[in-house]
């Protein structure tokens, strides 16, 4: 029979109540096998838990996604805002377009939040996790850079304001259109894939 004595397994031989002899045997082999099985089971359990978390995260994101028409409206208005910002001057009508789209986007976002609340979800305006905040900050920097470059390229590309030896992008007549398309598509993609603004790893199939 086997006994555990000071955490060492020993084989003992008995005659009646007397122990004749004992010596350690198969401890390493037996324990190692048990440990390997335990580790495999723990890893499988952890893997399964992580997969279920990923699945439920994807399902939650899908259920929180705004309707497609709203995503299209917001992205279109963001594109119009970028274009208007790039080509607006003091007295042209694009300044009005910039103001109108600039007001409409927050109103549509508020509408999306209101409908979410009716359904029973109150998402925070700003992400709560650290990764979400970094993700949002990167988005803000990206959009600011695209808008700034679009505006600068348009303004410095005009014959009356063009500087001698200006950067080649300044001569790009499609700059405001390109900036508007980049912003519009990016907003649509980000709103569709990350409606909560949280950085969540998603399956390629989703």
């Amino acid at each position, binding site marked *: 029979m086997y006994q555990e004595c000071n955490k060492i397994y020993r084989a003992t031989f008995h005659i009646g109540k007397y122990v004749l002899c004992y010596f350690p045997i198969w401890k390493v082999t037996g324990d190692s096998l048990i440990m390997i099985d335990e580790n495999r089971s723990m890893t499988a359990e952890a893997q399964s838990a992580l997969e279920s978390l990923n699945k439920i995260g994807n399902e939650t994101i899908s259920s929180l996604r705004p309707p497609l028409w709203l995503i299209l409206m917001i992205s279109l208005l963001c594109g119009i805002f970028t274009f208007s910002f790039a080509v607006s001057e003091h007295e042209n009508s694009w300044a009005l377009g910039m103001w109108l789209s600039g007001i409409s986007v927050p109103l549509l976002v508020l509408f999306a939040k209101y409908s979410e609340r009716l359904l029973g979800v109150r998402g925070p305006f700003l992400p*709560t996790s650290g990764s979400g905040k970094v993700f949002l900050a990167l988005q803000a920097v990206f959009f600011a850079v695209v808008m700034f470059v679009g505006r600068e390229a348009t303004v410095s590309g005009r014959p009356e304001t063009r500087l001698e030896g200006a950067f080649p992008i300044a001569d790009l007549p499609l700059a405001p259109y390109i900036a508007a398309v980049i912003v519009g598509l990016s907003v649509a993609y980000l709103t569709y894939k990350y409606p909560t603004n949280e950085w969540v790893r998603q399956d390629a199939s989703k």
Partner: protein
Amino acid sequence: MKNSRLNPVIHAPNRLHICAILSTAGEMEFKWLRERLEVSDSVLSKHIKSLEEAGYVAVAKRRDFGHRRTWIRLNAAGRDAYTEHVKELKRMVG
């Protein structure tokens, strides 16, 4: 799971899913959460109670649009505990 730093309160499947949903979406209404998890009122109440007693979720009852609604959200301690739990799961998978 022996020899691991998994949080026993969070590790139960339904509670883990509650934390996952709340960490993704902020504050949720009880009914919405129940439909997501496909569990009964009593089961969800029990799990929410456990998480509340552990200090991981905050439950608030408010009147919205003329209806009394129960809102549940993960607080800072719950978010930290959930993040640590997921980290530990990832460490175990390697």
